[in-house]
């Protein structure tokens, strides 16, 4: 098992954001967490990345507990996050943004190779490599954010709402890229409000409602589940 989340409780002050969620990701899988706004999806990702400390429960990555590990060590261990809203560094160039993604690496040759790979997957980033991140279009920014996330060559990539605010044609492209990243051996935890899209690429999924997992199953099972269809797939 690549990642195990066990009975995870997270609170912001008095507000309980996660009330005991349990799920896991196998090596090579795309797993999706779907749910409405405020269900606790981003909180889950932020806790896995070490930005938030849980009040109870455990997160194990390759068998090792990481709930007390600082974010920089977690990146080094092989978990990388593409945050919600892309959050690229607007006043750094495209190349500098990618370099930041490889911040935990010291091997110059490896970083250069990773950058070549990112440019191969996202040719548009190569064209704009000297441009400031803030001057890119929304779709390009999403590609930059994903490229940046891949620069550390993670074993597990956490994607937070990659389709947010993008035109439908770009959403298709982004999901195609997600499939390709996964085919190259990176496991993915995908958080989405666009449940139909997420379930179309994922192997398995979990449905999150107000801090609890209410349903789980293979993507096909969830797509056919009447509850899911009603609540998240518009009928």
């Amino acid at each position, binding site marked *: 098992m690549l990642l195990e989340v066990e009975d995870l409780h997270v609170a912001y002050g008095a507000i309980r954001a996660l009330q005991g969620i349990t799920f896991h990701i196998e090596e090579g899988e795309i797993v999706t967490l779907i749910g409405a706004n405020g269900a606790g999806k981003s909180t889950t990702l932020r806790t896995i*990345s*070490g*930005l938030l400390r849980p009040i109870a429960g455990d997160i194990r990555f390759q068998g090792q507990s990481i709930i007390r590990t*600082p*974010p*920089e060590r*977690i*990146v*080094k261990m092989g978990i*990388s*996050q593409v*945050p919600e809203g892309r*959050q690229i*560094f*607007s*006043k*750094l160039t495209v190349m*500098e943004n990618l*370099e*930041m*993604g490889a*911040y*935990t690496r010291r091997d110059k040759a490896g970083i250069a190779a990773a950058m070549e790979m990112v440019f191969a997957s996202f040719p548009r980033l190569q064209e704009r490599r000297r441009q400031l991140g803030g001057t890119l279009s929304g779709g390009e920014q999403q590609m930059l954010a994903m490229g*940046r996330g891949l620069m*550390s060559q993670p074993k597990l990539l956490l994607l937070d709402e990659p389709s947010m605010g993008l035109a439908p044609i770009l959403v298709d492209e982004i999901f195609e890229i997600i499939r390709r990243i996964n085919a190259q051996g990176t496991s993915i935890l995908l958080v989405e409000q666009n449940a139909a899209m997420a379930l179309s690429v994922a192997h398995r999924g979990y449905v999150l409602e107000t801090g609890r997992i209410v349903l789980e199953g293979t993507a096909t099972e969830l797509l056919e589940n009447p509850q899911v269809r009603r609540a998240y797939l518009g009928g």
Partner: protein
Amino acid sequence: MTSITRSLASPKVLLRAVAWAVYIALGVGILWGVVALVRLQGPVFFLQAVLDGLRLGFVYALIALGYTMVYGIVRLINFAHGDIFMVGAFTSFYAITQYKWGFFPAILLAMFVCVLLNVVIERVAYKPLRNAPRIAALITAIGVSFFLEYFTALKWVFSADYITYQRPFKVVVWNIKGILISNITVIIVITTVLLLLILRYIVYNTRMGKAMRATALDKPTARLMGINVDGVISFTFALGAALAGAGGVLYAIAFPQIVTFMGIMPGLKAFVAAVLGGIGNIMGAFVGSLLMGMVDVLVVSFVPMGSRLRDLFAFLVLIIVFLVKPTGIFGEPEVEKV
């Protein structure tokens, strides 16, 4: 639809027009002022004042950069920064008078001591307040500033007396068509320019510098990249302190009277310079400092009783900046993140 856009746009257009009017008025005013000053005492006197002002401005720049970088990264006005500058001056004083060190080793020692001091201050005083309201950190900074001033004024530290600083070299003055240039000016300009080039290299070309800029833009995302944000913050305080330490040495060489309260005014003026240039902006801090240095010396040279009024004028600049363009010359409006 059009009426909505127009009603939204018109106050903006109006504001912009007012802003331009103010800029033009300022420009004309400055031009008129220069002409008037030249006619008042002759071009040589005027140029001499400008030159002396720029010299002072270079020293202010060394302090202002620390203010602006620290603000850029932790949104804190480190009011103790001027006192770091004072510690730099005193460190070099002891190195030079007691151990007969030359200029270069003395300035390097001063920078080193200031770095150490500022990093300790950051860890002990500011870091525990990282998630506290900003006002708490600000008040702490003022407290640290008082602590440094009064603790070092103790008899067995630096003492509260004015001490005559002994320059580590002989002063040579060249007379170029009536304008006096001393080797002090040359050393100040060369040292400052050199330090600024090194700073520029660090901020734009090194891994740490890029991490600094990333952290200044977005701390949570920087952490997600695996950047050790606390380390970057310490590094920023260290960088600012190194510059302030060097500034303290240069200031003492130019104005060889040192006392533990010497950092207050240059510190405040460098702060005004940083705000004038646009707080958080490195280029802005430099330009703002040159302007502040010139305001300082021009007031002393031309205004009756100017040496008593110089501080008044310096802070008048601050008030004008806040009225006309609160974000400073190079600053951009800060968008509060929710």
